[in-house]
């Protein structure tokens, strides 16, 4: 059976392959840029539902799985907000890096007598009540603000060499911000410079290096030491 299928593919049945490619293209088209209106709500509902599942589930491995889905849905929301570089960084660093680290932590510690550590039901109910109250406070204060007053000005300064928003226009501007410059300063007559983020960028990079060295030092395998002889 497999041999005949392989032979058919070898002989080149263009209809099947083209049909498959067309199906693939239509699927990609359906989820690709630009985001349709409903996609935001789909990914938002996914992020919210998976976050609630993280809280509810008791198994640590399942919590990690739901957290991956929630973070990935949030990355999709970043894409829908025209923040393509932040969305890509979210998928690469958070989902690809931090969560893998977390899962390694789960696997290294999920043995022994305390595999399932459960909270008491009363504590869960109390936390749920307090959480709903906190959610009410946050939402009521967020809705009571008139955000339309702070709407961005319609004209956006997009210079030569900067892509249109549909192609993702944030990467080059973000790079210039990190270098301490502002794209709006290019070609302007004023000799004023906008503050950039060069110093925080350097501080964060050194901080990350120090933290990773410290983490490797803390989590290293302990060597068996020779028994210490009391000098007295």
């Amino acid at each position: 059976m497999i041999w005949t299928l392989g032979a058919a593919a070898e002989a080149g049945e263009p209809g099947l392959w083209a049909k498959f490619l067309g199906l693939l293209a239509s699927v990609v088209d359906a989820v690709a840029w630009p985001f349709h209106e409903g996609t935001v709500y789909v990914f938002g509902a996914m992020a919210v539902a998976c976050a609630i599942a993280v809280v509810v589930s008791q198994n640590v491995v399942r919590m990690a799985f739901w957290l991956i889905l929630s973070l990935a849905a949030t990355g999709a929301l970043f894409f829908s907000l025209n923040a393509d570089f932040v969305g890509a960084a979210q998928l690469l660093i958070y989902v690809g890096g931090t969560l893998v680290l977390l899962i390694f932590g789960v696997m290294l510690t999920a043995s022994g007598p305390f595999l399932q550590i459960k909270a008491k039901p009363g504590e869960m109910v109390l936390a749920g009540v307090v959480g709903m109250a906190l959610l009410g406070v946050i939402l009521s204060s967020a809705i009571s603000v008139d955000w339309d007053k702070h709407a961005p000005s319609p004209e956006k300064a997009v210079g030569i060499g900067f892509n249109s928003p549909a192609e993702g226009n944030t990467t080059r501007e973000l790079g210039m911000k990190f270098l301490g410059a502002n794209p709006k300063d290019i070609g302007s007559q004023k000799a004023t410079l906008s503050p950039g983020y060069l110093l925080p960028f350097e501080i964060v990079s050194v901080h990350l290096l120090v933290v990773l060295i410290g983490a490797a030092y803390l989590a290293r395998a302990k060597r068996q030491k020779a028994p210490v002889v009391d000098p007295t």
Partner: protein
Amino acid sequence: MSTTDQVAANVPAAELNTYLFIAAVLFVCGIVCMATKRNAIGVLMGVELVLNGANLNFVAFARFTRLGLDGQVVSLFVIVLAAAEAAIALAIALNFYNNHLTIDVDRADELKG
């Protein structure tokens, strides 16, 4: 309503309040997760959820208000610092597990006076 006429060219698909709602739910889920989980790694996942909700707020404000691209810069810093925090917290959790053979945070009370 002159402002609505001005921004009518780029009408957003979903309003700012939708993103604020999603971010608030993520934040509260993280807080509840931190409060109720007794597994140290579960607490760490709650911290990640809280940071993620705050990040979503930053990016949403960068899109819908005059904050501009600075919100995205701050969210990138948050992502990097969250990675650093996860690394160091996991190292501490592994050390604690090596010493106590559990990562129940309720048993980490030796520093109590």
